[in-house]
């Protein structure tokens, strides 16, 4: 697949990388603003703080399940185990988080450790055993789901400790804490990707593994680290989800891998690796969150929502593509 830049490059070659970068960021913003405008025209209360907080929290949850997927996609891989790992981290941490006997710190450590463990397995499978990422994470998707069902005995745990639930329901300075968590994770990952050697390695590896290898990038270690990080991020997402819904359910997250991929692709992260940014991914999360809330507000039935989401994904990405071509054609 050639990039849009290659495809839309005029014969005279009068485009600059800067122009492309600016437009890549802002075309998605245009799509987002059109959506928000359309919804608030129909529903004037849409931009009120309470509603906005809900939409942003939804976007934050989407972002949290999409960070790991985006990292894997930057290396031209993907991580299908996202949803199952969220469920496993959630049910593994739950016994420590019940309101009757809360040991919140231990619960958080357990949740993160479980996520990290699945991530390390993925990383070793991809980097050392050299199984295609699709296959190894597809397998761990089933394995983590089975473990989640076995650990929990198929039972959900409800009524969690109020202190812990603050992560999912609380506000700080009027901003949902979930949103702050997502932003903090974003800031850390952004620095990691753009201010460190590790970040360079990730992009280099995704763009061309062979060149990266011969340039001295420690390919195996970088890949293990990326998938381990993705697992850890799924652990974080699992804890936040658990706090949000006040329950640890072994069956949550079946569709998370698809959601995360939609967010990343809508955010301009291609499957070919080495391109795209977390900032773009965030815009993808916002678009999908706004879309979901819009469909709810319009009272679209659940069945038609499935249809509408499919259509809108196609239209949104097509519009983005069109805007970029127009931008490049000038």
């Amino acid at each position, binding site marked *: 697949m050639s990039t849009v830049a290659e495809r839309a490059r005029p014969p005279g070659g009068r485009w600059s990388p800067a122009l492309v970068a600016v437009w890549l960021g802002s075309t998605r913003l245009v799509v987002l603003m059109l959506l928000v405008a359309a919804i608030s025209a129909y529903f004037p209360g849409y931009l009120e703080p309470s509603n906005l907080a809900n939409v942003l929290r939804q976007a934050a949850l989407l972002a949290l399940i999409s960070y790991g997927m985006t990292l894997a996609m930057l290396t031209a891989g993907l991580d299908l185990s996202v949803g199952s790992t969220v469920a496993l981290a959630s049910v593994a941490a739950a016994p420590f988080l019940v309101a009757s006997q809360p040991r919140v710190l231990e619960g958080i450590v357990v949740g993160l450790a479980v996520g990290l463990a699945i991530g390390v397995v993925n990383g070793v499978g991809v980097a050392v055993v050299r199984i295609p990422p*699709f296959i190894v994470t597809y397998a761990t998707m089933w394995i983590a789901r089975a473990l989640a069902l076995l650990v929990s005995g198929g039972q959900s745990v409800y009524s969690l400790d109020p202190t812990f639930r603050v992560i999912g329901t609380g506000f700080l300075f009027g901003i949902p804490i979930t949103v702050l968590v997502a932003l903090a994770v974003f800031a850390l990952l952004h620095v990691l990707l753009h201010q460190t050697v590790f970040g360079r390695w990730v992009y280099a590896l995704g763009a061309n593994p062979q060149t990266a290898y011969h340039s001295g990038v420690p*390919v195996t270690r970088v890949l293990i680290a990326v998938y381990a990080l993705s697992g850890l991020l799924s652990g974080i997402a699992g804890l936040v989800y658990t706090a949000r819904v006040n329950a640890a359910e072994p069956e949550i997250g079946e569709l998370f891998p698809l959601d995360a991929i939609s967010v990343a692709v809508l955010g301009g992260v291609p499957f070919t690796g080495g391109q795209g940014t977390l900032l773009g991914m965030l815009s993808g999360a916002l678009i999908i969150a706004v879309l979901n809330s819009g469909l709810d507000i319009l009272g679209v039935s659940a069945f038609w929502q499935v*249809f*509408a989401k499919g259509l809108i*994904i196609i239209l949104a990405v097509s519009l983005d*593509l069109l805007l970029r071509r127009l931008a490049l054609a000038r």
Partner: protein
Amino acid sequence: MWPSLVARARQQAGRALAGAQGSLLVLVALVAVFALVAPGFFTLSNTDTLARQGAILAIVTLGMTLVIITGGIDLSVGAVVALTAVVFGLLARQGWPLPVAIVAALATAAACGFANGWLSAYVGLPPFVATLGIMGVARGLALVLADGRPITGLDRGLLDALNGQVLGIPVGLLAVVGLGGLTHALLAHTRWGVGLLALGGNRQGARLAGLPVHRDECLVYLYAGVLAGIAGFLTLGRMDVAHPLAGSGLEFDAIAAAVIGGTALEGGRGSAAGALLGAAFITVLRNGLGILGASLYVQLLVVGLVIVGAFALDYLAGRRQPLAGAA
């Protein structure tokens, strides 16, 4: 130019099968183990069950394999399976003649496939996005048309025919053999099939060599859509109803089956025989575990472990290429 392309295509098909040797070994071992420990696995009636279970996955995997050969992916197959079944169920219930209903349902599947192809090849959407969108559209339509409920009261004759046998061979198995042969012939012996391997291996090169890459790519999604439609009819036979949620998650099984069968996800390599091998692999595993009475959790766990095991075996046999050379 042309003979070298054909030679390369043959070579790539051979390499796909060679890449699946570990899977073949594990499949043979699986069958042997189940034959020994699972009472009733190696019986005629279970062979029939296996054929019926496996036929749906196998047919969908054939289409998926061709799509993946071009470097694409088709997430919509499960939803198209459901939409085909629902469209047929509705038309048949309203008293349309059977042949007309069948053609209309298959045309729906073809339309979905064409939409995937048009969006991917001509509009330029990433195939993942295009087929994810069509997945939502098709699944949504199936749910809306059927009002979320299974459609019952289908023509008994047709259901019996779908469940029946010809010369002692289950209809599903016949369909698999026929479509497998057709897919192999298309891939190895037609301009289109060889073009698919070429465009998956090097799109720019294929375009410069004068191959109609856009048309070839569009047609591959159409083919996958029609195969999903045929699989949709087989689900009617299995479930006795047209269910709007039929085929959920089938796309992931089909992708996994294709890859187990040696198809390279980056495109340019794959074979029909490999697709059938991969589908057989997953079907045998599920069926055998079911007979052993394994709980669903344990089944999931074992499926995951065995998939990894098949690849680890390749690795131990030293066939996996070093990472840096794999690109």
